[in-house]
């Protein structure tokens, strides 16, 4: 059975097909939820963020022109919603250059994660500034190229590379702390 392309599902969803929209959600909800876990650090916040993201995506669905992949467009919206999520959480904190917007200690919710490595990684990522965390997320977990990440974040490709380079150094130390 051939799966419908994203564009076909979008077209049907725009015509009012709930089934098509749910099929599209089903295709990406796992990835977005995991994105939320790594960006927020808690399953609860991740679920809230996921719902925010899909609501925003649905509202903007008619603006998707199809000149890039839907996945890239989806993650761009996810990034903006994530920024908004942190802005609501800490309205006075500048986001781009902020230091850790994270939990300082693993929360009980972390124990929900099924393995130690994923827990450690998630917690270590929380210690990164949001801007660096987003680059790590999109590069390693989203599997986007630097050009795509640059386009999604509205930055130059060199800036993205620089952020990733800096983030890896910090993340290495944090992972060492996590593994203790």
């Amino acid at each position, binding site marked *: 059975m051939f799966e419908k392309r994203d564009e076909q599902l979008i077209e049907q969803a725009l015509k009012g097909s709930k089934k098509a929209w749910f099929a599209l959600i089903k295709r990406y909800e796992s990835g977005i939820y995991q994105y939320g876990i790594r960006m927020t650090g808690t399953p609860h916040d991740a679920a809230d963020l996921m719902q925010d993201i*899909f609501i925003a995506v649905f509202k903007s669905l008619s603006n998707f022109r199809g000149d890039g992949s839907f996945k890239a467009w989806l993650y761009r919206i996810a990034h903006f919603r994530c920024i908004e999520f942190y802005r609501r959480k800490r309205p006075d904190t500048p986001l781009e250059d902020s230091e850790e917007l994270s939990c300082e200690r693993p929360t009980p919710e972390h124990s929900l994660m099924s393995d130690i490595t994923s827990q450690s990684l998630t917690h270590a990522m929380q210690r990164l500034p949001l801007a660096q965390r987003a680059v790590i997320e999109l590069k390693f977990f989203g599997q986007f190229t630097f050009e795509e990440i640059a386009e999604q974040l509205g930055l130059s490709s060199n800036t993205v*590379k620089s952020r990733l380079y800096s983030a890896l*150094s910090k993340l290495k130390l944090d992972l060492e702390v996590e593994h203790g």
Partner: protein
Amino acid sequence: MVNQSPEYLFGQWLDNALTEDERSAFEALCVSDEDFAARVATATQLNVAAEQFSAPPMPAWDKNATFIASDKPKWWQWQGLPAVSMAMSAAAMVMVLSGFSVQVEDGRVTMGFGQSVSSGPTEAEVAALVADRINDYQQANQAMFTQYVNALQQQQQESSTQLAQYLLKSSRQERREDFAELVQFINQQRDDDQRYYARQLTHLQREINAIDDGYTAVTE
């Protein structure tokens, strides 16, 4: 000339886009620069972690809440409504300021600028209108009277005919009855005369008889 920047080489490596020369430079950097090598190791570790990442099970979440566009906007929520409302208001103001008027007369709609709807017709128009109305009224009356006279004449003719027929009919019958009465009267007169003459004759006979008896007695 190979770009020796660690960030550039690192990025090319992550995108799997190193040329042969860049790969040589990258490997040399990994050997000579511990910090760079550590980043490469972390990136490799992250790639593995990304493949093996296990998140908590997907929570049950309200997908229906994300499907909100099925409600079509109501007509009063049409985005062009304020613009149309503004345009209508502007048009109304222009109509008021320019003295726009609409007149409906005898099934004709007349629109124009610079004349007031409240100002009525002139006196000459009124006089002409009244004269027309009076003329129409007179003609209507004339026609009605003519019709009325014709009807009266026709009715009169019918009545006269009926009366004549009645008179003819009734006079014939009366004359017949009169003649019958006259004949009866004459017959009655004749009977009376006959009875009178009979009595006279009888009386005369008696007188004659009496005379005859007297004469006889005298003679005897």
